[in-house]
Every structure is written in structure tokens, then in C-alpha cells.
């Protein structure tokens, strides 16, 4: 109670100055985090991708199709032929999978997991999200020899009124006039999906993962966990491209590395590290005006806060000198000052922290990195005040002036 009374003394009577400083602090934290968000997002996603993706995975830029690569391929003929041979073999093995239509990359997911990860690469930006299942599971190989296990999206379920375990006849838009018997093994917990197998021309989508691949191509049924990822819907809209299972291609192990090597010449393939570097560069480039403006604003605000801290510390020094001659201990003095400043920073920081996740929550990026950056920002804001407090530590100067 006494501490609170003394704490109250640290602030001006009506708290107008403090309110202004708190608004300023909140504004600084918010704008800074807002400017840092793209970069933070990139770093977060990069780290998550690194942690979750196979290290020897080759990634295709969605808009560079194999045909284009081969057209522009000016490497030696031997490599080109090897590449074509691989494509041909791949086509032969994969049935519907075709040369020249590669638009996929791959990642891993847990067998039968209720939630898996989607990692896509689109317009030089890695996208990362989790895909929770409303019911069922991603993988169910029972009866897979006669029925393709599929996971359906919420939109499809609602429109077609399908339930878990239902059997469907789907043609997968393969264009061969056949339909395939599929069994719904899982239903996604969301309607919008980034990867899908188009169901004809209609909007509703059906999702199938490893099982479809295994069903189509038993030579690859080695039990490896993977999912196929299509380019994002916005990308399709921008480039006016429609995807179908016929555009799928899978890359495995050595063949994948071969492609990677060939890709060096083509300049089309990238490793994850390359992608991350490119993405960071691109993020900084795209946000440079925002970052520069915010940093300038941040510096101005910081100077303002520093000035305020300086003035308030001078005021507090006198107050602390009074407290000291009235019997306050040094440790108590320091604690009081730091708590007073901390409250002024903590409240706006807390409010901005509540606001920021709404903007960033969709990207699943509120992890340790985010909070670490957030803490650093707060320390930067707290630092001038704290340093000034420490320089006026036990009000010796003021006491000497007074006495």
C-alpha cells in the first residue's frame, strides 16, 4: 500500500504527460512491429521450414514450367537428355503425371496425424500454415487398393453433403474418361485451401495426399510421408493457370538431386537456403519504404521519449533527494523508479501486443522469435529511461545541491 502511494507520487497529478508518453510508446511499438512483421514472418517461416522439410528437397518456382526450362536450357546436350529421360521415366511410372507440367513441391507430414503442415513457395515467398482436420485422418491405407482415400475440404462437404467414410466417384479431371472410387478418410477444418485436386470445373475441392500418389504409382509406395503441394489460389488467379493432377510430378531422392544439379544451369531450381535468402532480400526490398519511414519515426519518437525521460528524471531526482532525506533506502528508490517507468511502457506494450496478433495470427508466426523481437523493442524503449535512472541512482547530486 505504501509502495503504491509512493508510486503514485512518481507521476504527475493528473497524469496527462504520462498518458501522452504511453500513447507514444504504444504507437512506437505498434509501428515498429508492423514494419518488422514481414521480415519477422520470413525469418519465422524460414526457420519452421528448415525444421520441418527434408533437407534434400528441390523446389520449383511455380511459374517456371519444365517445358520452359528445357526450352531455355543451354547446358550440354547430355544433361538435357538426362533430364528429358528422367521426365519420361517419371511420366511412365506415374501414369497421369506429365512432362512439362511440373508445378509442385513436397514436404513431410506425420502418418495419420490430425494436423499437418503446408509449405508453399509462391512469387519468391515461402508460405506456411497448418492444416487441421475437423475429423478423420490424413492417412488411411485400409482398402486403398480399391478405393482412393481422400480428404475433403469443408466447402465440398457442405455442398455435396458428404460425411466421413462416404464413397465418392471422382474423375480427378484426368481427362481419360475414367472415374475412380474414393473414400473420404478426413475432412478439413477449413473451407479455403491452398492445395487441392480440382474437381472438374467446379469450385468444391477434394484433397488427396500420399495415398493418391501411391495408388497411381505403386513404385513409390515406400511408406514415405509426403504431401503434394500446389501453387496457391492467388497465384492461379494472377497467372491465369489452372492445375490438375496431370500437372503433378514427384521428385524422389537422387533424381531430385540430379534435377537440382541440372537446375543450377537452368537457374530455375533453388535450395531452401536460396529461397530464404531471396525471400529476405525481397521482403526488405518490398518493404523498404515502410521500414525506412518507421525507423525514422521510431528514432524521432525515441528521441522524444529520451527527452521526456531526461526531464522526468531531473524531476524525479529532486523527488528522490526528498525521499532520501525523509528516509528512503537506495534499493527502494531504484525499484520505485524502475517500476514507475516499467508501468508506463508495459501498459501500451501489452495493448499493442494484444492488437498485433490479430494481424499476424493468420500466419502462425507468433512464436519465440516474435516475442524475442518484441522484447528487444521494449528494451530499446526502456533503455534511455533506465539508463537515466541509473545515472541518478541515489540522488547524490541533488542532495549535494540541496544540502
Amino acid at each position, binding site marked *: *500500500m*505504501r509502495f503504491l*502511494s*509512493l508510486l503514485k*507520487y512518481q507521476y*504527475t*497529478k493528473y497524469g496527462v504527460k504520462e498518458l501522452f508518453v504511453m500513447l507514444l510508446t504504444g504507437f512506437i511499438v505498434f509501428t515498429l512491429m508492423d514494419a518488422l512483421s514481414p521480415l519477422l514472418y520470413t525469418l519465422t517461416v524460414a526457420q519452421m521450414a528448415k525444421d520441418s522439410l527434408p533437407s534434400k528437397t528441390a523446389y520449383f518456382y511455380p511459374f517456371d514450367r519444365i517445358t520452359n526450362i528445357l526450352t531455355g536450357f543451354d547446358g550440354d546436350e547430355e544433361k538435357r537428355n538426362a533430364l528429358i529421360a528422367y521426365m519420361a521415366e517419371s511420366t511412365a511410372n506415374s501414369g497421369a503425371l506429365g512432362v512439362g507440367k511440373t508445378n509442385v513441391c513436397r514436404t513431410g507430414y506425420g502418418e495419420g496425424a490430425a494436423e499437418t503442415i503446408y509449405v508453399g513457395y509462391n512469387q519468391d515467398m515461402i508460405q506456411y500454415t497448418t492444416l487441421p482436420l475437423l475429423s478423420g485422418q490424413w492417412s488411411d491405407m485400409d482398402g486403398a487398393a480399391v478405393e482412393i482415400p481422400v480428404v475433403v475440404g469443408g466447402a465440398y462437404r457442405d455442398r455435396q453433403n458428404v460425411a466421413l467414410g462416404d464413397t465418392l466417384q471422382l474423375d480427378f479431371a484426368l481427362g481419360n474418361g475414367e472415374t475412380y472410387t474414393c473414400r473420404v478418410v478426413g475432412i478439413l477444418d477449413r473451407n479455403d485451401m491452398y492445395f487441392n485436386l480440382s474437381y472438374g470445373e467446379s469450385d468444391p475441392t477434394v484433397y488427396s495426399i500420399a495415398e493418391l500418389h501411391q495408388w497411381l504409382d505403386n513404385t513409390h509406395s515406400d511408406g514415405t510421408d509426403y504431401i503434394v503441394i500446389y501453387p496457391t489460389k492467388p497465384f492461379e488467379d494472377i497467372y491465369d493457370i489452372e492445375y490438375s493432377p496431370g500437372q503433378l510430378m514427384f521428385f524422389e531422392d537422387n533424381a531430385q538431386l540430379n534435377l537440382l544439379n541440372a537446375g543450377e544451369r537452368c537457374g530455375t531450381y533453388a535450395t531452401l537456403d536460396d529461397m530464404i535468402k531471396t525471400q529476405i532480400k525481397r521482403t526488405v526490398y518490398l518493404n523498404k519504404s515502410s521500414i525506412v519511414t518507421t525507423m525514422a519515426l521510431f528514432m524521432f519518437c525515441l528521441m522524444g521519449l529520451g527527452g521526456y525521460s531526461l526531464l522526468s528524471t531531473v524531476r524525479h531526482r*529532486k*523527488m528522490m*533527494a*526528498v*525521499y*532520501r*532525506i*525523509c*528516509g*528512503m*533506502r*537506495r*534499493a527502494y528508490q531504484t525499484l520505485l523508479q524502475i517500476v514507475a517507468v516499467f508501468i508506463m511502457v508495459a501498459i501500451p506494450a501489452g495493448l499493442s501486443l494484444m492488437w498485433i496478433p490479430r494481424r499476424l495470427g493468420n500466419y502462425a508466426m507468433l512464436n519465440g522469435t516474435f516475442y524475442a523481437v518484441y522484447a528487444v523493442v521494449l528494451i530499446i524503449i526502456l533503455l534511455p529511461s533506465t539508463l537515466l535512472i541509473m545515472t541518478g541512482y541515489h540522488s547524490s547530486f541533488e*542532495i549535494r545541491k*540541496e*544540502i
Partner: protein
Amino acid sequence: MLIQCQALSKYYNKGKENEVRALDAVTLTISKGELCAVIGPSGSGKTTLLRMFGCLDVPTSGTCRILGVDTQKANDRILSRMRNEQIGFVLQEFGLIEDRNVYENIRVPLLLSRRRRKREKASIEAVLRKLNIFELRNKMVSQLSGGQKQRVAIARALVNDPSIILADEPTGALDSATAKNVMSVFKELNSHGKTIIVVTHNPMIADQCDRVLTLTDGRLS
């Protein structure tokens, strides 16, 4: 003895070229109920001596015992408690918190005190009445005259009922009439048994005290 100093010395920048001997082997005792003036030219060590009495500084050598406590051996907690409960300060520039009212300024020592807060209001009002500033209790300090401010400072020094009042040039910022008034307050307090030590340049003020200590170059003469 309330205050007992034995060969008390205080050096600043000891061992360096710019070493200053603020106090040099000062030996003195001050008894309960004395009204004592400390005079001397600027730089003679008056303020340093007052800081020693107020437990704001410790001797470089020698001993300084305040109410039986050796300030050199006591920790910050003990010294702070002594300042809160046993010592009241009155400063030349008043040392008041300008953007608070009179009542809140006088309340500060009570906020730091271990004593029960039940009697807080009664204590403050009693001291306000004693110094004839009760009607000013809700006024902001910045609105007061110099004499009124000094009375508030004295009220703050008295609110915890200390044994010793230390006044550093208490009339330095006041006109002569107000200074006389302040001294009469000190005399009255002294008549009620308070020990008062006044540091001053003003010989007129010193003349009103029972005892005068003269410091020259850190030594008592």
C-alpha cells in the same frame, strides 16, 4: 549524548592530487535539547558536517555516533530508518515537491515510516496547526511564498516527531522578517525539547542559538 563525534574526518578524492579535507579530526558532542549553530566561511565543511549528522554520509576516519549508532558501521537500512524516525531536515531551497499540495508534501515521511497509518491524518493536521499553516493544506506548493514554503518544510521535518532537526541555511532564501519568523519557530520547538542544529552564514541567526560551532578549513575552532 545525542551526537558524538570523535576525530571525525572526511576526505574527498582521497589519495589523489585534488584531495579535499572537508572535515579534519572534528571532535564534538551535542546533547539533547540544544539549539546549536554551525558557522564558517564557504568550503569550511559545514554542510559536510550536517550530512554526517543526517546519516547521508559516513566518515573517512574517526567515528560519528548519532543516538548511539555508529554511522560508519550501520547499513543503509538502519541509517534510512534513523533519517525517517529520528532526524528532520529543513533545507535552504525547501526541498518540496512542487506539483503536490502542502498536505501531500508533509505526508512523505509518513509514507516511508513503519508507524501505523491510522494516525497519519491526525499527525499531519497537528503539525499544520502547530506551524499555523492549516489553512494552506490544500494549496499547491508552487503557489506558496518563501516563508510559507519553509514552514511546510519544517512541518514535514516534524511530522514524524524526530529527536533532531537539521537545518541547512533555513533562512538563506528568505527576507529578514520571514527569517526571524522561522527562527522563532525553531526556538519554540527547541523549548519543547527538540535538538536543533542550524548551519548558517548569517551571524544574526547564530546569535539566536545557545551554542555556536565555528568551522574553519574543516576544523572546529
